[in-house]
């Protein structure tokens, strides 16, 4: 039995399943809700299957159709891919449950195919073993994401979708140019081969610059975050959750993968530059979040800040730092998804998301506020939560590396996060001047947010196992002392 499960090529299943699901939902729009949910569960199972396989057999490489390198498509899965897949699966399942109640029938018809397509792109991206496939999946992801944002009505949403589309295309083109230069220099697209042949030439430098710049633009690292707040705030709640939790992480994943395996530039000033940008993002995003008057914008700026954390690992470059950043990524994804869902509930309940007029949400929508608060705990990095583990590891890494200033940034970022979240929570307890009409929030939406938020907290308790899973195939290099 075990052998059967391990024997299935889960890697391929993981890409095929969402694609098929997307098709099915497109073809049978009337039952798309149930279909979508079934496929989400199936994908989740497949991720578990792949995880099992990885635990049993170590990192996996799979050549589709047996074509092999250069022209064929290779898939590769190790701990890092698994982490991303698990993130996508957890968030995806949550979003699927939530969306089942969120969208009207008309919208659902569009939502489900697009969302499963996005999921397929994500899974394919996390499993790609060559840099050109990464480009293709990145583009697919971007297009699906843009279409999802445009699901929201209104000029603002369309505007931001358009802006996002242009930015996304621009970023991908930069990346592609870099790919061209790399291929020219080393004659291969395969990450593993590139890693072996790597040598620093001006062309490589320019490729590094171009690819990093494109990916940073898509990851919305400060100061290139201009497109993110509007896009994330205008999209429908489940889409916001997807964008903040997964889509920006995809380009970060590519950057991380390249950085870890191909570029190996940790000790250079480029790493320090990324760290500096990350630190600025943490502070700037935090301050801007604090200055927002609308809940969804606040959460969007919080994403800007949280993305900054991920880049603090670059100047450190130790095993612990990478693991910390990845843990941060995982817990931020889940917590932020929960948070956007909670914001969606509040928006539906109150008809607005002005922070100062939240008017005793704590009493009137307790489950949602609990979800929001728990997610906030993780985002602030308070124990016990996934965010705390990530923060701890990063702190530990920066203190052991003697670069204490990153630790200070981490702490300051946590304080800023606490400041803006508790601002919301404080208003949620108090009576506002004007009361407003009350919409109905389906229990399913409340529970979806709550369960995800609980998962973010739970991540704080399973870190030994999670870190071990992450280390399959040693994507972060060996355990270095200190």
């Amino acid at each position, binding site marked *: 039995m075990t052998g059967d499960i391990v024997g299935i090529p889960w890697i391929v299943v993981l890409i095929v399943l969402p694609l098929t699901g997307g098709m099915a939902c497109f073809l049978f729009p009337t039952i798309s809700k149930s279909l979508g949910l079934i496929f989400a569960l199936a994908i989740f199972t497949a991720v578990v299957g792949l995880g099992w396989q990885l635990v049993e057999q170590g990192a996996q490489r799979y050549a589709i159709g047996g074509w092999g390198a250069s022209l064929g498509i290779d898939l590769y899965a190790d701990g890092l891919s698994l982490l991303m897949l698990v993130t996508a699966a957890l968030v995806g399942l949550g979003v699927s449950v939530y969306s089942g109640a969120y969208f009207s029938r008309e919208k659902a018809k569009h939502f489900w195919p697009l969302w499963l397509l996005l999921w397929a792109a994500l899974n394919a991206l996390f499993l790609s073993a060559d840099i050109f496939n990464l480009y293709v999946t990145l583009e697919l992801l971007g297009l699906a994401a843009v279409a999802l944002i445009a699901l929201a009505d209104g000029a603002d949403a369309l505007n931001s979708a358009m802006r996002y589309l242009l930015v996304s295309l621009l970023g991908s083109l930069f990346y592609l140019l870099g790919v061209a230069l790399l291929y020219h220099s080393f004659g291969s697209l395969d990450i593993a081969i590139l890693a072996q042949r790597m040598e620093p030439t*001006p062309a490589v430098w320019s490729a590094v610059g171009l690819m990093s710049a494109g990916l940073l633009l898509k990851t919305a690292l400060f100061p290139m975050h*201009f497109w993110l707040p509007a896009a994330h705030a205008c999209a429908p709640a489940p889409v916001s959750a997807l964008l903040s939790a997964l889509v920006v992480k995809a380009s970060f994943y590519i950057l991380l993968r390249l950085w870890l395996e191909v570029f190996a530039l940790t000790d250079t000033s480029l790493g320090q530059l990324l760290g500096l940008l990350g630190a600025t993002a943490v502070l700037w995003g935090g301050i801007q979040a604090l200055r927002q008057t609308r809940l969804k914008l606040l959460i969007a700026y919080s994403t800007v800040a949280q993305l900054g954390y991920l880049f603090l690992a670059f100047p450190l470059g130790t095993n612990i730092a990478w693991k910390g950043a990845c843990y941060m990524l995982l817990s931020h994804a889940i917590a932020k998804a929960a948070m956007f869902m909670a914001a969606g509930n509040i928006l539906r309940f109150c008809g607005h998301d002005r922070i100062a007029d939240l008017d005793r949400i704590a009493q009137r929508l307790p489950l949602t506020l609990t979800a929001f608060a728990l997610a906030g705990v993780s985002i602030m990095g308070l124990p016990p939560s996934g965010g705390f583990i990530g923060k701890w590891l990063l702190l530990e890494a920066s203190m052991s590396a003697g670069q204490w200033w990153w630790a200070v940034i981490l702490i300051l970022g946590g304080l800023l996060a606490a400041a803006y979240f508790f601002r919301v929570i404080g208003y949620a307890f108090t009576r506002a001047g004007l009361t407003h009409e009350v919409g109905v929030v389906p229990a399913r939406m409340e529970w979806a947010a709550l369960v995800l938020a609980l998962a973010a907290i739970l991540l704080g308790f399973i870190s030994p196992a999670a870190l071990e899973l992450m280390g399959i195939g040693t994507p972060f290099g060996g355990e270095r002392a200190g």
Partner: protein
Amino acid sequence: MSNIVNIFLLLLAPGLPLLLAIPALRRRVPWPAHLALLPTIVLLFLPGSFSVELPWILWGNAGMGIDTGARWWLAISVVIWAASASCLQTPDRRGAGNRLTTLFLLTLVGQIGGILATDMVSFFTFMTLMGYAFIGLLIDGGDEKTRRAGRIYLVLLILADIALFEALLIAARSTDDLGYEAVALAIPPSPSSALYLSMVIAGFALKAGFWPLHVWLPLAYGSARPAVALLLWVVPVGTGLFGAVRWLPLGELSAPIAGTLLQALGVAGILYALLFKVMRAQWKQLPAHTAIIAVGMFAMGLGTGLLDPAVWNQYGHLVPVFVAAVGLALAIMIAAFVWLEKREVFPSESDREALWLERWAKDIIRWGRRAGGDTLPELCALWLARWDSFWQAFTWQELFDAGEYLLQRWELAITLFLLLGMVSVALLWLDATSVL
């Protein structure tokens, strides 16, 4: 058998008044104040010295007992307490009189317990209870003058308690056993014996109203109700003197400075009372001045004892007799005045002159209020205002807004990319030339 009875009585002497002090328990008891004295009276007639160790209490070596010295004190106390109890009128059982009885009984517990205590900590404990309860007794239902006396005595009492507490700590540093004899033996060789002596003298001087700390006594005598005026000698003053005798290592130590000081204080007190006050005093304050003179004499005695241990060993046992005699004399004096007053021999008098102690206290409070209530908040407000103007002057808020607005222009961000593109062209050119 008799031992058990002894112990039982020892515990009952302060215990019964303590129980009766709870209003609910004495609701149906007739003459509670007198009844509370009963075990003490029985105790007085039991022969011999005996004591009991109380386990678990405070530090474990607490105890109660009775010896010859204590018996004298107890005797005079019982007489005066009984007299006072008879004056204590409790018109209504549930109202103010009820509370008066409670305070009366609590004071009684404190005094009897203090006399029976065989160690310093128990004594200190009982005396604290006595002190605070007595202040309650003094001011309860009293006029402005008694309240003034109470306030002043309260301040002195707190200061005294602090001084005695320090003395206790010093004693505890020198010996683990805080029984009187042990302390008297342990203090003379200790390096901090001078500090101990000064603390003890200061503490009891405050409690018993040595000159010049006597100021509350005339006020209290002048206005307290008869029942309380009767107690003034035995309770605060007498117990203070009793404590001084017990706490000072008399007969073990020769302390010339402290002895001389005490003698000087005593003489000064006597002269002061005789020359400045007795001749001009109101009738009702006469007992107060008598008391001051008696305290002065007592202080002289103590001073002599400290100067020459041998004298103390010879004549020390006379001290209780002296106190008892003064107490009785004062009691009779007060009784006479009460009787005279009832017959309206004296007009009611007032004494509005503020005493130095009150002036100081008022100054300190005014100063504190100014510092804590006005200056500090003003300073805070000033700094807050500065901080605010700092924020506004530099328009940080706008800076953040403008910064974000600029960053939101995508021309700016993309221009970075343009630069990057140009750099990559240059690099590519370099690469190309290097290949060739």
